[in-house]
């Protein structure tokens, strides 16, 4: 399945968008590391869905708008995005910070959202569980900590790094800090309004997640009692990469 790349202008911001496949719309919301390339799981999802993979404002090839100061700004932007593209009954798939973003969107307005898949989502605090301090990790440490199966990390680390990639890494890191430095990777007021999410929610978590430990899933389950939780064994922070087939099966089974 081939993805087309385009640039979309919305809210005064140019956003890089990759889109491929046919079917109901599926909006993939990437995490802190961005979505610089089309990954195998996106191709697989595109066999059944119209998959949209934007790079968030502040990441990758997208602009860094002045209005982007917190996660709420990004949530409103994506609600505008759903409206601007007239996406209806969209499946949201949000990984890590993208999961947090999906929740912030959904507590505000679920009218264009059919269901939500959260993959190792950030967004809440959980007693006794601490996210890893991604800001104190070197790029190599961070890459290694993303995966349980280190062959994925090795492959990523073996790629040559161009100056453009360094620029994008620094840009992404800046935006992540802007939105998630403090409170670290969560919004303390979000739990108050999670009951507003009336669409089905699936939570997928790598059992060996070293960035956001899978113990966070218990707190999510408490706050979203109707959500289904699936823990993926032998898997780190990015099940969609590390266990792509299994991950896509979970999405297909859940979202239809």
């Amino acid at each position: 399945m081939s993805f087309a790349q385009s640039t979309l202008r919305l809210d005064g911001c140019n956003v890089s968008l990759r889109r491929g496949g046919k079917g109901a719309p599926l909006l993939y919301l990437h995490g802190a590391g961005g979505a610089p390339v089309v990954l195998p799981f996106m191709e697989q999802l595109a066999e059944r869905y119209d998959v949209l993979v934007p790079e968030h404002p502040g990441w990758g090839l997208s602009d860094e708008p002045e209005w982007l100061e917190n996660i709420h700004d990004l949530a409103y932007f994506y609600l505008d995005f759903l409206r601007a593209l007239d996406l209806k009954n969209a499946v949201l798939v949000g990984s890590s910070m993208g999961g947090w973003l999906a929740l912030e969107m959904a507590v505000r307005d679920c009218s264009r959202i059919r269901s939500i898949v959260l993959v190792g989502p950030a967004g809440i605090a959980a007693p006794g569980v601490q996210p890893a301090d991604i800001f104190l990790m070197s790029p190599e440490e961070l890459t290694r900590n993303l995966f349980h199966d280190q062959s994925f990390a090795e492959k990523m680390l073996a790629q040559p790094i161009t100056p453009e990639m360094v620029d994008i890494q620094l840009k992404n890191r800046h935006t992540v800090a802007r939105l998630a430095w403090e409170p670290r990777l969560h919004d303390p007021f979000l739990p108050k309004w999670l009951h507003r999410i009336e669409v089905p929610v699936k939570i997928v978590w790598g059992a060996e997640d070293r960035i956001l430990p899978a113990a966070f899933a218990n707190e999510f389950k408490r706050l979203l009692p109707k959500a289904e939780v699936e823990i993926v064994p032998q898997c780190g922070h990015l099940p969609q990469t590390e266990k792509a087939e299994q991950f896509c099966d979970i999405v297909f089974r859940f979202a239809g």
Partner: protein
Amino acid sequence: MQVILFHLMPYAALDLESARKHGTVWVKLPNSHFDPEIGHRLYNRYLDEMEYGEELGFDAISVNEHHQTAYGLMPSPIVTASALARRTKRVKICILGSALPLRSHPLTVAEEYAMIDVITGGRLVAGFVRGIGAEYHTFGVNPTFSHERFHEAHDLIIRAWTEPGPFAFQGRHYNVQYVNVWPRPYQKPHPPVWIPSQGSRETIDWASHPSRRYPYLQTFSPAKVVARYLKMYRDTCKGYGYEAPDSQLGWAVPVYVAKSDEDARREAKPHFEAFRNVFVRMPIEMLLPPGYTSRESYKNVLKAKAEMFADITIDKAIELGLFVCGSPATVRRKFEEHWREMRFGNLLVLLQFGTLPGDLTRRNMELFAREVMPGLKKLGMPVEGAAVG
């Protein structure tokens, strides 16, 4: 030239071996390494050293702020400055400076500085800094808002000192219905503001602006880096349409003086190397969190990373001019050479560094004050008898 005694108050009793194992003495070195009884002796020793600075004829004593680190035991430089306020009579007291963005309410700085200024009858120099990168990790303050918070806190403090209160302040980070600081500062219109920095274009543009003309101090950098930034400051002033007087430029540098060059190197070696290679050290991610510097500056640091983050010997540090060390004649000559090149009107000397013990610190202070300082103070002064009639 004004000569200022600068002290960091490090935890000199640090177990260097285990500090090395932790990789840094910042942020995460467990505070079980701090022994309060040793701390008690160190604080009092350091305060004695600073007070002795007045007797030795320094123009000012300078303190600064660092948090959760063995590098410096002054999380509140206000406390140190307050202790000095009543024990000294003549010297200026420089707080270089308070980390404005780390404060949740900048008016507390306006108030505390004003108190010290009034108590000392106008001997305060008010330094403002952003805090170093590591402190954004320890305090959790978002580094991507660091510049914004700094500028807004600065504006609020200056207005609180100069405009009749009460007035309302509306900002993006601070909102105050009634700004009405008691006491008002002693100095008019307010205590002089100095800006210490490790070197940044943004800071230089801001400090040198004609509406501020704040003295800029380059801290702990190789001499050629100091020269580059001081020149950048002067050039920026020229771009703004004025010539910066020497008094607007300063250099902060560790110094060690002994009888001979050989003695100086031998005595200072373990203590300076502990300072440079243990106390100062931290990984780049800790030093420069996102937004703390521009991404261009970050990339420049990345390029120089191998050199900046590796251990260096005292000999290399002396060669780089990161450390000025030697006999009185050598140290005097080096500063005269540097001064001729850079024309800084303020020299801040760090005469205790790392693990340097009390006896060597005192001897260093005495030799510097008696045999080096008098000549330096005359630099930039009009030559006697040469005054135009």
